[in-house]
């Protein structure tokens, strides 16, 4: 799949092609493997969405021209098969949430940035890191295969609620397709856990001299919290999936009870489908933040660098991420307000859910105040980061509506919810990922991406995404339910035909715009302008490595860290940035009084450490 994709022009002196690019233990190569695989998945997921948007926007169109691609899934009348439509939305959700925005985002940037920004030679365990990618690859292969089997891929929604997903008799997608989905997700969970264990261990144990927790870039804080959330929540999904596997394959009744098919009762007695929802959403909600936090971390870094200002409220940023991480575990039942849950319990979950607005608002406030009166540099990465803040705000506000148990009775499972989570989690995280690629591309490939194409990509995508998801709020409030194949039979929704058409056209344009990015990406790997050592005049440690860092990252010693990563536009300083490895003794002109005090420690600290070393 990606054998050809991550060639780098560096020269590893040891190791052949296979150990350098394929079975590599170098975190930078593994990061690129995650990125390329994630991009391929993003293309597949995007294509699926275009196909079902065609159905929703143009319900009467003849789609028989898609026959070469979809074959039997297009009916004789040139329509998309209704069951295949369900498979399309299911796979779109699964692919985007797990394969693109979890593995593609966290896998890429945690792997790439953690060792480079904390000052480590590599991850704590390169071997486990390699395993993490290859489990993901195996998981990808299984999921990819499921797209091509005759009964179709899983079609019970990405949340795979039983009994629909548990009974092969229910829909054809719940047969082999669902089995492959579960196998794939089991492999995915292993991959994610291996990755998370490595990220946490590296951040805690392998920081360079002087890199205290208060000097960590916010990216690292975000990846750190993400990994902790992953460690705590993915095993729960594993348990949920395991019990579902038992129900499907071994005849147990964890989730099944009193089911009649064709007038005949199934033997399953005593199960509870709601139990699955509890287990699923105990992962499912933290998963939202697994997807979002890395994007927020990336944005913090990019916005500060390109505003040439210290991030506003560093500690508040860390605190709010911690708060979000904690809260993410106690709000899961807000996905289940209409399952007949105790209204009092509903109020508690409403309250806890609405509290998340506080740390989220802190973050948005800090982003805006960082940008406020900064010397803004509108690089493509900066634009995408600002776009993220915009989506996070508009999508977050609707969270106040759907998070409310009373309002949710009307809005549950409508396009309002679709609009909400696509903006706040889908588009925001996607923008974080793209911003990260634009920003760290020079470090990854030693070349620059084209700015102009980046601007075109940004504006089409930004406007396109709003045109896709903003109208969905209206459609949703009008009551149109999600996952419905068609609504032409309902008089009520007749007035929304045009709006749906607009949405579909915007979706197609937005997906199309990603090819500009793809072209820019591939072209720049080979033909881009050579990148200077520190193209964005950034403070973090990764820019102190050579243009093509080899395995081990720094040719000499790992730099020592003396200051926090956000010394931008410090009054009195010669330049508007002071990287983290510059000692205070070299910048007497800009030191604050307490920093000048630290100069004395710098020498002592090192001699002490040298002595320590002699003893060993």
């Amino acid at each position: 799949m990606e054998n050809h994709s991550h060639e780098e022009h560096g020269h590893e002196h040891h190791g052949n092609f296979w150990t350098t690019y394929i079975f590599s233990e170098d975190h930078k190569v593994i990061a690129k493997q995650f990125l390329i695989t994630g991009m391929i998945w993003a293309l597949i997921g995007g294509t699926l969405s275009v196909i079902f948007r065609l159905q929703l926007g143009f319900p009467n169109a003849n789609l028989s021209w898609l026959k070469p691609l979809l074959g039997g899934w297009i009916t004789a009348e040139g329509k998309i098969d209704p069951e295949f439509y369900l498979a399309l939305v299911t796979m779109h959700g699964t692919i985007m949430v797990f394969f693109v925005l979890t593995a593609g985002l966290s896998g890429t940037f945690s792997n790439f940035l953690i060792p480079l920004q904390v000052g480590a030679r590599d991850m704590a365990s390169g071997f486990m890191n390699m395993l993490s990618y290859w489990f993901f690859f195996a998981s990808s292969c299984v999921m990819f295969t499921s797209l091509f089997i005759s009964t179709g891929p899983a079609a019970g929604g990405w949340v795979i609620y039983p009994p629909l997903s548990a009974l092969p008799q229910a829909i054809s997608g719940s047969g082999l397709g669902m089995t492959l989905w579960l196998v794939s997700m089991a492999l995915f969970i292993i991959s994610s856990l291996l990755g998370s264990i490595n990220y946490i261990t590296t951040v805690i144990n392998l920081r360079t001299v002087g890199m205290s927790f208060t000097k960590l870039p916010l990216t690292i804080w975000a990846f750190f919290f993400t990994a902790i959330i992953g460690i705590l929540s993915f095993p729960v999904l594993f348990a949920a999936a395991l019990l579902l596997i038992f129900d499907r394959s071994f005849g147990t009744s964890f989730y099944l009870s009193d089911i009649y098919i064709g007038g005949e009762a199934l033997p399953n007695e005593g199960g509870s489908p709601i139990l699955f929802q509890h287990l699923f959403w105990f992962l499912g909600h933290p998963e939202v933040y697994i997807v979002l936090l890395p994007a927020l971390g990336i944005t913090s870094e990019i916005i500060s660098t390109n505003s040439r200002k210290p991030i506003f409220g560093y500690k508040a940023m860390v605190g709010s991420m911690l708060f979000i991480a904690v809260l993410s575990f106690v709000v899961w039942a807000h996905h289940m307000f209409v399952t007949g849950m105790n209204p009092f319990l509903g109020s508690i979950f409403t309250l806890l859910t609405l509290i998340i607005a506080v740390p989220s608002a802190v973050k948005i406030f800090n982003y805006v105040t960082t940008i406020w009166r900064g010397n803004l540099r509108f690089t493509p990465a900066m634009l995408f980061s600002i776009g993220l803040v915009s989506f996070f705000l508009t999508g977050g506000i609707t969270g106040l509506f759907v998070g409310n148990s009373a309002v949710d009775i009307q809005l549950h499972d409508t396009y309002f919810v679709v609009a909400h989570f696509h903006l706040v989690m889908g588009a925001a995280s996607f923008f974080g990922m793209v911003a990260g690629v634009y920003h760290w591309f020079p470090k990854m490939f030693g070349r620059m991406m084209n700015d102009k194409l980046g601007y075109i990509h940004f504006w089409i995508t930004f406007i396109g995404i709003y045109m896709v998801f903003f109208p969905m709020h209206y459609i949703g409030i009008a009551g149109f339910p999600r996952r419905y194949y068609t609504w032409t039979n309902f008089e009520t929704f007749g007035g929304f035909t045009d709006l749906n058409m607009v949405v579909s056209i915007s979706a197609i344009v937005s997906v199309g715009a990603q090819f500009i990015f793809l072209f820019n990406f591939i072209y720049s790997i080979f033909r881009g302008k050579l990148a200077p050592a520190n193209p964005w005049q950034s403070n973090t440690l990764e820019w102190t490595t050579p243009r093509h860092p080899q395995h081990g990252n720094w040719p000499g010693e790992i730099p020592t860290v003396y200051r926090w990563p956000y010394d931008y536009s410090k009054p009195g300083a010669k330049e508007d940035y002071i990287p983290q490895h510059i000692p205070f003794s070299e910048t007497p002109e800009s030191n604050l009084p307490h920093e000048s005090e630290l100069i004395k420690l710098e020498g002592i600290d090192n001699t002490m450490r040298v002595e320590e070393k002699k003893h060993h």
Partner: protein
Amino acid sequence: MENAVDLRLVEEPKKPLAMNPKKFGMWLFLATVMMLFMSITSAYIVRQAEGNWVYFELPPSFYITSFIIVVSSITMHWAYRASKRDDLAKARLHIAITSVLGVAFLVGQFIGWVELVQANVYLVGNPSGSFLYVITGLHALHLISAVVFLLIMLVAVFQGKVSARNMTKMEMCTTYWHFLGALWLYLFVFLILYR
């Protein structure tokens, strides 16, 4: 290039926590195992609260296996202490005893399943029985992996790869064994309390 930095600095990154990354990773792995069992046991509670829950006695052999696993933790600790003192003969003996006890535990768990079947409690049926099979089965799978780990350690001791100065793997193995023992005790008490 900015990487021509301060020449005074030392190459090895300071270890801010005095913990070996491997051991630390091990603890994180244990956290994931803990979460797995936590979620299944809480699913058990949630499901039980909904009623339609068939009552049955826990198989008697579980009491014996609980005793075995406690004893095996003691012998494991002796093995750990012996290898810390470089007393390899004793370490070998105690690791071997622990492995045998581990296998005895697994056999006992299997006998427990046989007893369950004799009491007409099957994997397929009311979830109260299914849960018991899944919980004990998952624990047994983890214990098998720990026995494999023990055998690896046994070979390592024979090859002289374990010594007072090379204890990382031995410590990890000990941690894992104690963890699984404690986990079983938790599960056992849980199963007694929530019938």
